[in-house]
């Protein structure tokens, strides 16, 4: 008749933490804090303004992609294994259009005007976003129709990479400076805070607000928590999968544009070999979603967790760089963090009643 659970109200903060989170999670968060503090104490130059800016800027590119992917994961559609291939196709598309003759606006002689640069950038940016939207929608539709997300996105990964590679002849596509994308790649409007960092923060805040306070966000959680019950209450996974995959794809394309703006060029392998500590963008992004503690099965987690996961991984990476570890050791550290958090959250879920 009555349940043996304590009423919810009037609990102290510590009690609420203990009620809402399992000891394993508390222990893990505690361990992370210890690592962070210890690293800060024993690493010179760690707590400097310059270094903190570096950490967040490093977190920004992978973080934005991971925030997009979080929507897919929360809605119970697992991961897009094609994240880096979407980015690869997008960067080729963007760079090609940036350098295309027909897309050079204004007078032919001398330095281009600002408005001409804005036009060039806008055309390339919009086209890239449209392609990414189509790529996301196609994958989402296949997943929503019942396709296995792993199979669908692995297949899509090959497809996108192939298109990008073919289009660029597998060569580096470069374009002249000034080109109108520097502001996103390396520029900063607010003091010396890079614009990409600002973009990361804005996207993180908007994503979190969307999940918490919009109908769409609620649907993401409901469909992710129980797809059958979601359908029964009028929230079909089909539309949800499409929307979430579009969000993830657009985020990947945005990152591709920002990265291209940094280096004024593009190559299909940028996100496979020359990026981040572990080299492979897809693995990094999935690692961030996992380390943030989002449920792989969906329905539980947030983009706030993902953002913190991105900053955490970036912090550890930065600490290891400052202490002179080579890239192999840093890849190992990221791998350990993923394994550790997967194990912890798997154990937590096994013990929880929610997944009976």
């Amino acid at each position: 008749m009555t349940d043996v659970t304590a009423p919810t109200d009037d609990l102290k903060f510590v009690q609420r933490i203990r009620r809402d989170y399992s000891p394993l999670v508390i222990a893990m968060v505690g361990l992370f804090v210890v690592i962070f503090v210890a690293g800060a104490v024993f690493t010179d130059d760690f707590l400097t303004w310059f270094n903190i800016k570096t950490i967040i800027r490093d977190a920004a590119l992978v973080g934005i992609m991971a925030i997009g992917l979080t929507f897919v994961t929360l809605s119970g559609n697992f991961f897009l294994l094609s994240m880096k291939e979407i980015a690869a196709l997008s960067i080729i598309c963007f760079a090609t259009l940036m350098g295309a003759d027909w897309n050079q606006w204004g007078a032919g002689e001398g330095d281009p005007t600002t408005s001409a640069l804005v036009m060039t950038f806008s055309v390339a940016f919009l086209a890239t976003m449209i392609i990414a939207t189509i790529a996301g929608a196609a994958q989402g539709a296949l997943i929503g129709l019942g396709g296995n997300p792993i199979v669908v996105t692995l297949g899509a990964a090959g497809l996108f990479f192939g298109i990008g590679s073919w289009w660029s002849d597998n060569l580096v596509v470069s374009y002249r400076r000034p080109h109108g994308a520097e502001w996103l790649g390396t520029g900063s409007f607010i003091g010396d805070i890079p614009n990409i960092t600002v973009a990361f923060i804005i996207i993180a805040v908007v994503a979190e607000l969307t999940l918490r306070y919009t109908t769409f966000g609620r649907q993401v959680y409901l469909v992710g928590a129980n797809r059958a019950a979601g359908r029964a209450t009028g929230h079909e996974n089909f539309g949800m999968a499409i929307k979430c995959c579009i969000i993830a794809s657009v985020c990947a394309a945005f990152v591709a544009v920002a990265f291209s703006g940094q280096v004024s060029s593009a190559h299909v392998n940028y996100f496979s070999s020359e990026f981040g500590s572990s080299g492979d963008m897809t693995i990094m992004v999935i690692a961030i979603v996992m380390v943030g503690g989002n449920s792989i099965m969906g329905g539980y987690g947030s983009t706030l967790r993902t953002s913190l996961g991105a900053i955490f991984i970036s912090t550890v990476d930065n600490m290891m760089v400052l202490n002179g570890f080579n890239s192999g050791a840093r890849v190992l550290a990221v791998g350990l963090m993923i394994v550790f958090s997967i194990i912890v959250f798997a154990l937590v879920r096994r013990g929880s009643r929610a997944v009976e």
Partner: protein
Amino acid sequence: MADQPLLRLTDINRHYGAIQALKGASFEIRHGEIMGLVGENGAGKSTMVKIIGGFDTGFTGEYFYDGEIRQFSGPTAAEQSGIAIAQQELSLIPTMSVAENIFLAGDGVPQVASKGYLARKAKPFLEEVGLGHINPLRATNRLSVGEQHLVEVARLIAHNPQVLILDEPTAALGETDSIRILDMVGRLKERGKSVIYVSHRMDEIFKICDRITVLRDGESQEARAAKDMDVNSLVELMLGFELGDMYPERKTIKRTEPVLKVRDLWPDGILEPINFDIYTGEILGLAGQLGSGTSEILGAMAGSTKSRGGSLHFQGKEFLPSRPKDAIRRGIAYCSEDRKYDGLFLGRPIMENMSAPALEKISKNGILNGARERALATENAVKFTVDPKRLPQEAGVLSGGNQQKVALGKWLSIAPKVILVNEPTRGVDVGARAEIYQILRELADHGAAIVVASTDIQEITNLPDRIISFYRGVQIGELALEDMTSANILEMITDPFHEAGIAVSEKES
């Protein structure tokens, strides 16, 4: 001595709020006897078992055990006196070894014991329950469900109980595991133990029980020797005649114009297209056994089950919902029989469960209105007597009865005109059952049309105003209120064509 019962309860009363689960019920068991305890869902079996096992102490009446009157403070006290209870839900630790689970309570073994020692100690108990072939060091979750049930019993036997209560031990088991359980019960009897065997399976009851106590609507019948009864007379005892106050009073219904007409609906799993009408203010019952097609009909009406064709005439429109959303938008709510599968978001707060079908109602331009959501969820939670303070909690922590109330209560958020409910009270305790019946009746009185499908013969006899019966995917006929007796309904859902070999007794409830 042999005639004096080992355990005797007399004149037991137990109230849950306004509901009386046990009304002056009595129960006794002798040394070395296997006593069957049977009754329909909600007859008070589980309440009786809880009282005997010391879980429920809020009863009045006399509890006599082993020569004196007892008052157990809790299950541990009862267990120490030799009364052990194996419940339907397993209470083993899946990751620990079988031997560790058997000695979980820590008595009878030293504080520090090697795994080998535990295994050696555990072996005889495992042999006792017919699991001698199992390595005691195996992790428990590597065993089959049936084997895990047997391990649970082995753990109880390790305490050397005098009375063992088995609460539907075979409900979740296949044939071979069931046989193991029955064999084990027989061996216990040979060793002079008393066993209380609670089951829905008639064949098992007659196979192993010496005497049978029937509970009906909270009242007990005199225990009778199993060999003096047959399945038919036992079923008769269980069903009884009129059922009391659990079911709300029915008002006279004026049936003028149907609110919803089902025309040529042909769901998968049904042999031929079906037609029927639903009127405002009535509860229509779809009676049928498991597999008779009633679930498919409700599912098809709600758009969650595929159908080959047909249409619904509702509010001047003709349509066939192809997905639940179509039905919800028109004000048709459907609560399926499996709340864990598609009725609840167990990992999400109760509040989000309550408002899930009505997100459009609690939002404006896609932005959720927290205050409106809280108000709506609170209002409906109160209607279903779910404590509004619990709204932020996960739905998964609720008891079965409260989960069912949330699964059903969430539909009030769309103010439905038609409510389709499949098995409204499956796995729900007696108190919540009565509440659910009461609410369904109130909704009908306030102008909703309700369709209930149920395989529970008492429920289908006493709740609806009208019944349409189904048998193996065929619509058999309709019973008006005055013809709705258990006997009539039983005949219509078990043997409508008077075929040979299908007896009333084979009814599965």
